[in-house]
């Protein structure tokens, strides 16, 4: 982390960048927030630890409009999103000085709390330099511990790899965290009967409060005005009056990002109701991989997206019924 701060100070000092986009320490052991730093003094608050899960690439849409370059700290998975935004002309590569930061898996405070940990005072083992496999958590109700892997965000268990897709320089080491197959959960649902599938999604989506956190955090949902906010489609918005509306919202949202979603996992991370929203996006990714050839959005900035592409021999929609 110190290395990052030092480098940021250098870049600010030599005028390479006008500001730094990273994380600022919070007032609890686990709530750092995305922040801009413009001076060396401000960088005193800079942190980079295992709770810095936020994907900063989407902030670069606004930062691209500012005067001068912005140094942005991107984790390996964030760089896919950044590439995708370049491809869609939403960010300006020239306005970004990308520091690819190391990652050893990001933590989900919700998972820690779900283990019954309350009244947290401090957490040990969450610094990026820590090698510990176990988190030591001091609470007002006594000391607790939790395996690091058990507290990781879902996305880190199916990590796409610790390689940065786009960067100007790399700082910090990474640790492989993948220990599950990305499509296992999707396949598990696919294997269910229609009744079970319906019950599963009905239950999950019944929690949705239409807060739009998933959409607003999503780097692929970069529309200036979402169709669900515009009058053009006469589409429902912000109300959850009927259970159909959430289905419509989540299906259409997933469809709109199909072939563009890098599977960064922000939607599931930010959902206040813990809905596994990535299961929608990942279903499309699995289908696209299976039907049109493997495709990783954000792996590059030039390839044709699956939904703006075709071959004569593409599968017919009737394949859906035939796969059984």
């Amino acid at each position, binding site marked *: 982390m110190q290395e990052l701060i030092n480098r940021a100070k250098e870049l600010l000092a030599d005028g390479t960048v006008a500001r730094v986009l990273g994380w600022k320490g919070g007032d609890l052991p686990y709530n750092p927030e995305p922040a801009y730093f413009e001076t060396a003094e401000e960088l005193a608050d800079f942190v980079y630890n295992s709770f810095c899960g936020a994907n900063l690439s989407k902030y670069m849409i606004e930062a691209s409009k500012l005067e001068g370059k912005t140094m942005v700290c991107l984790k390996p998975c964030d760089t896919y999103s950044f590439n995708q935004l370049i491809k869609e*002309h939403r960010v300006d590569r020239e306005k970004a000085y990308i520091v690819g930061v190391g990652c050893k898996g990001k933590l989900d405070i919700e998972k820690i709390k779900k283990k019954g940990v309350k009244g947290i005072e401090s957490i040990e083992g969450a610094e990026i330099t820590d090698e510990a496999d176990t988190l030591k958590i001091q609470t007002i109700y006594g000391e607790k511990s939790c395996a690091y892997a058990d507290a990781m965000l879902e996305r880190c268990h199916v990590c796409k790899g610790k390689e940065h897709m786009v960067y100007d320089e790399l700082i910090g080491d990474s640790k492989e965290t993948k220990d599950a197959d990305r499509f296992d959960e999707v396949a598990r649902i696919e294997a269910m009967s229609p009744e079970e599938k319906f019950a599963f999604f009905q239950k999950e989506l019944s929690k949705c409060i239409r807060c739009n956190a998933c959409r607003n955090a999503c780097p692929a949902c970069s529309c*200036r005005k979402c169709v669900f906010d*515009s009058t*053009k489609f006469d589409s429902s918005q912000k109300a959850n009056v009927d259970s159909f509306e959430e289905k419509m919202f989540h299906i259409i949202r997933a469809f709109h990002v199909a072939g563009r979603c890098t599977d960064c996992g922000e939607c599931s991370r930010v959902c206040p109701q813990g809905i596994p929203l990535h299961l929608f996006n990942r279903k499309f990714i699995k289908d696209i991989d299976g039907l049109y050839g493997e495709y990783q959005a954000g792996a590059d900035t030039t390839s044709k997206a699956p*939904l703006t592409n075709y071959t004569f021999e593409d599968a017919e929609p009737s394949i859906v019924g035939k796969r059984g």
Partner: protein
Amino acid sequence: MQRIGVFVCHCGSNIAATVDVSKVAEMALMEPGVVHAEDYQYMCSEAGQAKIAAAIQEKNLTGMVVCSCSPRMHEATFRKAAERAGLNPYMVEIANIREHCSWIHKDVEEATKKAVILMRAAIAKVNLNAPLQPGESRVTKRALVIGGGIAGIQTAIDIADAGYEVDIVEKTPSIGGRMSQLDKTFPTLDCSACILTPKMVEASAHEKINIYTYSEVEKVSGFVGDFTVDIRKKARSVDMDKCTGCGVCQEKCPSKKAPSEFNRGLNTRSAIYTPFAQAIPNVPVIDREACIKFKTGKCGLCAKVCQAGAVDYEQKDEIVTEKYGAIVVATGFDTIKLDQYDEYAYSQSKDVITSLELERVMNAAGPTHGHLERLSDGKAPKEIVFIQCVGSRCSDDRGKPYCSKICCMYTAKHAMLIRDKYPDVNVTVFYIDVRTPGKNFDEFYRRAVEQYGVNYIKGQVGKVIPQPNGKLLVQGSDLLDNKQILKEADMVVLATAIEPNPDVRKIATMLTASIDTNNFLTEAHAKLRPVESPTAGIFLSGVCQGPKDIPETVAQAGAAAVKAIGLLAKDKLLTNPCTAQSDILLCNGCSTCENVCPYGAITYEDKEVNDHGIRETRRIAVVNSALCQGCGACTVACPSGAMDLQGFSNRQIIAEVDAICR
């Protein structure tokens, strides 16, 4: 709020017999925005249109719905009527209560209910319609004819005679097409070459006609009035300007093993060749596959003997790009492959031939110099069997479901010519039906039976079995005598089904012209617009549209020419205003729409926007409405809904959905 008029057509009894039209009109008045509704016997009639005009003026209508036949039939009629009465034509919508309702439903109550729903959907749409103004586009005064057979030649001559430039693109080294391969033509028995050659000469000599032989259409872009076409001139290896057509090269060419395409592979030709003696242009091409020089690098004899120095081994394919206002497709036909018809022993015996091969056999310039002989042993046949409908009228996938139309007549012609020239030869025709609609056609067929004694047997042949003695055992049935027939023949001629030229698929795709399940190009209307493709500016000539004989082909060629001339005669065309438009406040500039636009109609510009007080420069999609054809691919690709299609907007379609599901 719109002021909408609803006009319900009885279409005589076509609609009124199954739909309670007055009920529909009555229900219309319940709908929001509807201020006028009436029903009338024939809305498309002059009186009907007058009623529409009166209502528009008296009730100050801002929109109207006509419940009638398909919009593909009369949308244009009603839009024009509205325009004459002062209403923007794009404020008219049609509810199709005939093809989609009265004609397919029997129960009056049910059909009326459906008609009301279809009407509601149209009203819901009109409520959201906005007046549209068509744009204008220019017309390039030049036509392209694809295919240089009799259809293409005739079309080209007719267009050129009207004073417009025409290019013919022909894939083979010479124009002339299938007709040049025929010996005689029915029902007059003229020599095919005698009537075709003058046409070929006329075309090549015409100052307005430019012929690209040994060339293919490579790419087509643009739209009606303004097509841009890339033509690949394949390397001929002979300089067209220098060659005198003396023919020495062909004589001297040592490679003479290539099967002659012109003679249907019944004999061979040299590697440097003109397909036939009357070829136009009379300039040979080198078949690089067969040429020793190209295969081994040695030889070069033709260059040596050519006094004009026309042979050029270095010649390369050349791409010519040209602009056209109209394109006529005249790609013609071929016979189907017979490899799935083992029962007729076509691939087992040289003496089983197709009718087109028989044309070459009977032709003086053919492989047997016009002598009727067996191709296996050169002996004169004594017993010839013709089998009709080989692959035609076949509902399995071995053949074609349609009637090839020309076989009955040419078989009668063949039988008659053989009996005339070789009276000792017995000719038997196995037929299913004999179809002879056409001027002097049945008389012609009857002459074959009555005057020439051709033996017509009603019944199909089950199999042809080559015998050890070289004869062919034909097992057929005679349905009228109810007996099975076994007949030894010396020669069997198969009236093979015809199919559109296989290249037509590729061409249709380039032209975005639609094609039916049999690969025939679809006409805009089966009866009323038989020579136009549904794609504007594309016309159809000859067999590419459906099986035809020569007189019909020539007639259609002329008709296609007239349609093309009608288009070329215009200075400007009105363009369809139903094009895509991007909302600058919603556009992300993400380029997704550009990626799916087949016309390259979308570009991006940095534009200053004022988004409710936020002023900034944004990358915005801009649609070129002259290029946009209104498919709508971009509207769905656009995640923010910034792209919308005028005339079929998101809200309009949603309104229709809502009205139907209500």
